[in-house]
């Protein structure tokens, strides 16, 4: 869930003052104090096609895997869950809040019917990986050609 920054800063940004004024302007115009980009649905997904089917990576740092429900019905994958926000305790002050929190629901249409029983999910360093194999009947079959 990274914000893509502009990359190499040009020399103008040496003028902190200028940049801070610019940031203030952007903040005013955007109506938000945190750097935000218009986002796709949560969680953002990367998708690969493999010999067995599809592999999806969902970016969800800090999410407890127990709070995520993955369901596969036919050719539909659904991700549902919540990102726990940390409520400030008594005497704590929130100075900045940019990380998303709340419930999410995302449904994807798969290009095939998945073998729901064989779906595997692993969670590592804030990335959920879901391997979705094709159902048996949708696996490509090699047809033997009979010779006379």
């Amino acid at each position, binding site marked *: *869930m*990274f*914000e*893509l*920054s502009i*990359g*190499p*800063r040009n020399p103008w*940004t040496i003028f*902190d003052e200028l*940049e801070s004024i610019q940031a203030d302007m952007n903040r005013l115009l955007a109506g938000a*104090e*945190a*750097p935000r980009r218009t986002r*796709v649905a949560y969680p*953002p*997904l*990367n*998708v*690969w*096609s*493999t*010999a067995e089917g*599809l*592999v999806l*990576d969902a*970016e*969800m*740092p*800090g*999410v*407890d895997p127990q709070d995520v429900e993955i369901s596969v019905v036919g050719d539909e994958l659904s991700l549902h869950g919540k990102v726990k926000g*940390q409520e*400030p*305790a008594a*005497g*704590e*002050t*929130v*100075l*900045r*809040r*940019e*990380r*998303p929190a709340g419930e999410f629901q995302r449904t994807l249409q798969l290009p095939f019917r998945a073998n729901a029983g064989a779906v595997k999910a692993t*969670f590592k*360093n*804030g*990335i959920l*990986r879901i*391997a979705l194999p094709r159902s048996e009947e949708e696996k490509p079959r090699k047809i033997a050609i009979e010779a006379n």
Partner: protein
Amino acid sequence: MSDTIQKTNPTPENEPVYVPRVDVRETAEAFVVVADLPGADEKSVEATVQKRVLTIEGWTQLEKPQGGEELGREFGAGRFRRDFALPDAVDPERIQARVKSGVLTVTIPKKEEVKARKIQVTG
């Protein structure tokens, strides 16, 4: 909203750098910076303090599945960095950092002398 901890300019780099999203909160004892760094672990993230600037930086990589062909990408990976100017009232020697589930938590304790103390009033 107080801006005791502020984002400062990242140093110029020749490659794009991701700026991680952060939450910052202040407790009686410390400032706590929580940064989303999906894909990062304790080996790929670094927190340093120099001249009262806290820098969190590192890199992540997309793990391509074996034989996988990319169909779509909604998030990236690579270098990330974000700097924070520290207020004077903190003790840079006792900063602690911990990464778990792709989230980095940096705890910056306040100096003893600036912590609020209740003073007994005697009559």
